[in-house]
């Protein structure tokens, strides 16, 4: 195969994959704009009625607020747990990294459904608010994302020298970290925060099983609507999808903005 032909084949494959993965999403979007679409190939008509109905319902705002606070708290806890450790591992003690690797496979060996079993066995009878346990558990399960994104932020610069100069100049370690290190890894921190927030925002398994559906977050609401009111659920799914797309767009922009100068130094070194 000539390179040109193989590029054409590659484009074809990617286009096919794209259509395959996007079809369910596109169909849900069309469904959310349809007056009704039951047992027909095409919807009967188009309307915005379902959007105004859902957005106007008081439940909707309450649900968003709950998921938003869950996402925010989780992000803060994940950052507090990991920022110091990833910094320390990268700057002072790279051996720690090999021990941290277990965290990256954690969601595969102990997925949410397994973790929640242990959490219920341990905490069901204890007088600790379940919501605290929930936030901590979601933070733990989002750690791989946080870890990877933060770890990438430390590639390619001498943070040790920066940090120690600040210490020599009289800053306390904490102050030096906030003033000198954070500004230099802010892109990585931002990416890590966005990824953690998104995963907590859309959490379902832990929230549903640990709190028994009493704390209605986005996905739990979506599931309830799905059983009772397909149209409303499709609107919620579409809004959720637009939210995900928006986050992805920000991520793409951050990566393009920050990776551009990085790349040119790499190429310069090659020459």
């Amino acid at each position: 195969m000539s390179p040109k032909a193989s590029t054409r084949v590659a484009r074809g494959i990617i286009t096919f994959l794209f259509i395959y993965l996007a079809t369910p999403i596109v169909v849900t979007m069309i469904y959310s704009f349809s007056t009704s679409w039951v047992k027909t190939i095409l919807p009967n008509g188009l309307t915005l009625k379902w959007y105004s109905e859902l957005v106007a319902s008081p439940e909707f705002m309450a649900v968003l607020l709950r998921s938003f606070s869950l996402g925010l708290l989780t992000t803060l806890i994940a950052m507090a747990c990991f920022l110091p450790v990833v910094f320390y591992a990268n700057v002072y003690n790279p051996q720690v990294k090999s021990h941290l690797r277990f965290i990256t496979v954690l969601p595969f060996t102990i997925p949410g459904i397994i973790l929640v079993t242990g959490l219920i066995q341990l905490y069901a009878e204890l007088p600790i608010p379940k919501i605290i346990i929930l936030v901590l558990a979601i933070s733990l399960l989002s750690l791989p994302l946080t870890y990877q994104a933060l770890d990438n932020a430390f590639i390619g610069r001498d943070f040790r020298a920066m940090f120690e100069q600040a210490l020599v100049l009289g800053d306390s370690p904490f102050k030096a970290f906030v003033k000198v290190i954070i500004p230099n890894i802010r892109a990585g921190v931002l990416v890590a925060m966005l990824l953690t927030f998104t995963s907590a925002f859309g959490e379902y398994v832990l929230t549903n099983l640990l709190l028994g559906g009493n704390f209605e977050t986005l996905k739990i609401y979506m599931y309830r609507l799905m059983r009772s009111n397909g149209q409303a659920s499709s609107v919620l799914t579409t809004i959720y999808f637009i939210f995900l797309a928006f986050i992805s767009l920000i991520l793409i922009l951050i990566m393009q903005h920050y990776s551009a100068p990085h790349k040119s130094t790499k190429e310069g070194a090659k020459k």
Partner: protein
Amino acid sequence: MKTRLKVFFPLGLLVVLVLLLPITVMIIASFQSADGSFSLENYHQVVSTRYYTEAIRNSLAISLVASVISLIIAIIGAWALTRLAPKTKNILISLFNMSSSFAGVPLAFSLIILFGNAGIWQALMTALHLPRTFEIYSLSGTTLAYTFFEVPLGIMFLFPVFEELNPEWKEISSVLGAKPMFFFKKVIFPVVLPNIVEVFTLLFANAMGTYETTFALTGNSLVTIPTLIGTLIDGGLTANVPLACTFATLFALFMTAIVWLGNRVTRSKREVKA
């Protein structure tokens, strides 16, 4: 030493509180009989009750088929991705990332609109006077559903591996007179194979642990290990948390072994390289 303690304290506390302690308690509970004494009764139930072995069989079947199919598609997809322009690559990777976070309730709902009883696919079949051939709430339907997040996940794992392959190798081997097939079999395949095995174990483990999509798609009509655990925790009268702990313990052991093996394959390759 003191700063080190401070650095690791928050993470350590988190890991102890919501990972080590619950998992330890879970393992202990799995050996408890109804009256609280030590017994293997729960384990005996897992292997001897037909409904439970069915859950294990279903989980293994769906996960194995879904991860093999997804792996094949992901290999082709990741290869195709390396052939595109750098900017397109970045955008597509973000899109794949996004579509894998669409898994769960939203995915199940979309598939019901597409393939459900009142869905578009059935309408199409009826209009064309064809028999109903595909049931989304079935084993094969669930397997199809899994591919929607397994494929993008596989591509995201494999793409960096393929991206690292050096295009110069191909030139060198063709200068030395190697045929493309020979090159593929003797150069590319040995380098990539360990990674493919590792990605396969991750995809398999991911499918085995899938609760949200299965539950949202089939309710409790299709029983897998995760949905069974969900029922045992959540099921009101039929709730049996110690038995859920038994299933969860077996699951965690089995998955740790598999992921460890998968990791081992790539690790040994790295050591040889060094």
